[in-house]
């Protein structure tokens, strides 16, 4: 166990948190998995530093993929995952939490939203504020960028399973007929939003929150009919190669949540830490701030975490209360 330092940010940084980059050295008391997306990086460091700060433990924050993290939680090499998305990762939650019982997913979740977004020009000048507006070819023609008379709509990265569902939604709502659905990496989609805003052009795109794009630009979320499980008929891609044609989803996405998860062994060895993890209640606004700080302001995750903890002492105290 390392000496526990209190107080200043600099001291926090020197406290008991090591990263994989600094070398393995001695085994840490606890390992927090760090995902490769910005909010996960920020929250992993905040949680790691928070545990070190409040419980005097030596914590290592180690970058790894989600599957590796879950396997580590199951086998005892990893103690905490800061951001488990549901329902996206429900298959892993079922396997390790429900069936094996080796992982606990905290009950609190940060609500996450996904849907369609418009730049200010698309919403205000062209008048695209509701998903229904995408069925108006005169409006969507304004989104044309390659001269074929049809607008373009970025629906996500080719690797995302949500991208196929956006295709289903476009078919179900009917706007697939007058819009070209474009798949490209998120960086390409976001840079296109940046360029559209910089030149005052209209653009509509698939989006999700919390996300830094909402802080970077004045983005408008399109109105949609509320999610209805009865109308959300998505055939599992693994079950049928023609799943997109056979699926239907003419309603909004359901609200997703992401949760802290921790190893069953942690709950036994450090019940106070497990109780702390159960109380973590990041708000969507805080998560947006985290992604903006890391992605746009290019803050170092460790330094950002130290500052966050220094400026949120009340929250830490609340989480650590017995």
């Amino acid at each position, binding site marked *: 166990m390392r000496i526990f330092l209190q107080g200043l940010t600099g001291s926090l940084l020197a406290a008991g948190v090591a990263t994989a980059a600094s070398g393995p050295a001695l085994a840490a008391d606890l390992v927090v998995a760090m995902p490769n997306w910005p909010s996960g990086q920020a929250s992993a460091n905040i949680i790691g530093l928070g545990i070190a700060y409040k419980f005097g433990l030596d914590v290592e924050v180690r970058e790894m993929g989600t599957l590796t993290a879950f396997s580590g939680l199951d086998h005892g090499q990893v103690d905490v995952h800061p951001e488990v998305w549901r329902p*996206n990762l429900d298959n892993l939650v079922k396997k390790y939490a429900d069936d094996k019982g080796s992982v606990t997913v905290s009950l609190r979740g940060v609500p996450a939203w996904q849907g369609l977004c418009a730049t200010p020009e698309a919403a205000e000048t062209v008048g695209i504020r509701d998903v229904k507006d995408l069925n108006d070819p005169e409006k969507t023609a304004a989104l044309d960028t*390659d001269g074929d008379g049809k607008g373009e709509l970025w629906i996500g*990265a080719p*690797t995302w399973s949500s991208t196929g569902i956006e295709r289903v939604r476009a078919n179900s709502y009917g706007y697939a007929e007058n819009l070209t659905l474009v798949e490209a990496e998120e960086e*390409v989609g976001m840079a296109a939003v*940046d360029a559209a805003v910089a030149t005052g052009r209209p653009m509509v795109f698939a989006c999700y929150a919390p996300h830094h794009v909402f802080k970077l630009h004045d983005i408008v979320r399109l109105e949609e009919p509320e999610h209805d499980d009865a109308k959300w008929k998505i055939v599992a891609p693994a079950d049928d190669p023609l799943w997109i044609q056979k699926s239907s989803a003419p309603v909004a996405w359901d609200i997703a949540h992401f949760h802290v998860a921790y190893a069953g062994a942690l709950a036994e060895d450090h019940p106070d830490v497990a109780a702390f993890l159960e109380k973590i209640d990041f708000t969507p606004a805080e998560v947006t701030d985290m992604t903006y700080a890391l992605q746009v302001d290019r803050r170092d995750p460790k330094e950002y975490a130290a500052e966050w903890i220094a400026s949120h002492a009340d929250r830490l105290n609340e989480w650590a209360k017995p």
Partner: protein
Amino acid sequence: MTDQRMHDSVSPGRRGSRRLTGKRLVAGMLAAVFGLGAIAAIAAETQVFDPKTREWVSYDRKKALKYYARNNQVPEAFRRQIVPFRTAEKPGTIIIDGNMHYLYLVQPGHKAIRYGIGVGREGFGWAGIVRVGRTAEWPTWTPPAEMVARDPSARPWANGMPGGPDNPLGARALYLYEGDRDTIYRIHGTPEPWTIGLDVSSGCIRMNNDDIVDLHSRIDVGAKVIVLMQGAALYKGV
């Protein structure tokens, strides 16, 4: 997107999913420059705003030549300038908006240097992320075999045209790589500066020589290059 969280790595750039059809729409820009709504600027060809008549006018090869002959430079919109540009991309990243005929070099403080570019009229339409694999000063140009067969003026240079003021690659070339593989797309200069802002008959991303020299001086080999999906038309070779 949320499902990204199920993948351990980011996928490589994607290529060639969209072939452009019909005449490329080219928005004539300039909302930022002239304070006008860009919607009005959208038309079937490049348009520029004439501050004298206060009208949008089409900007084709003939007009471009005339404008250049009169002013010895391209219209203001296509001249190098610092513009507000809010992005999560780090300074040093190049973002190519072929539709608007702009190339942005991201700068600190939510700004970018914006250059006017000429792009290919038709052909490959793709979006993705590449990098500057290498650069060259006054590069040699070797016409593709089919051009040598088709165009008598290209024949003398079948084995390579030395760099110089008449060389189609202009003063500098940035060679775009995907991983370690040369994509054979380039950002290069041109001996025909009036073609900036146009969809020219051939060429990758072309910039006037002053601009490509400026861009070359500011970037490092390895710089990230994002090609936007909108009307992203690039040519193979020149």
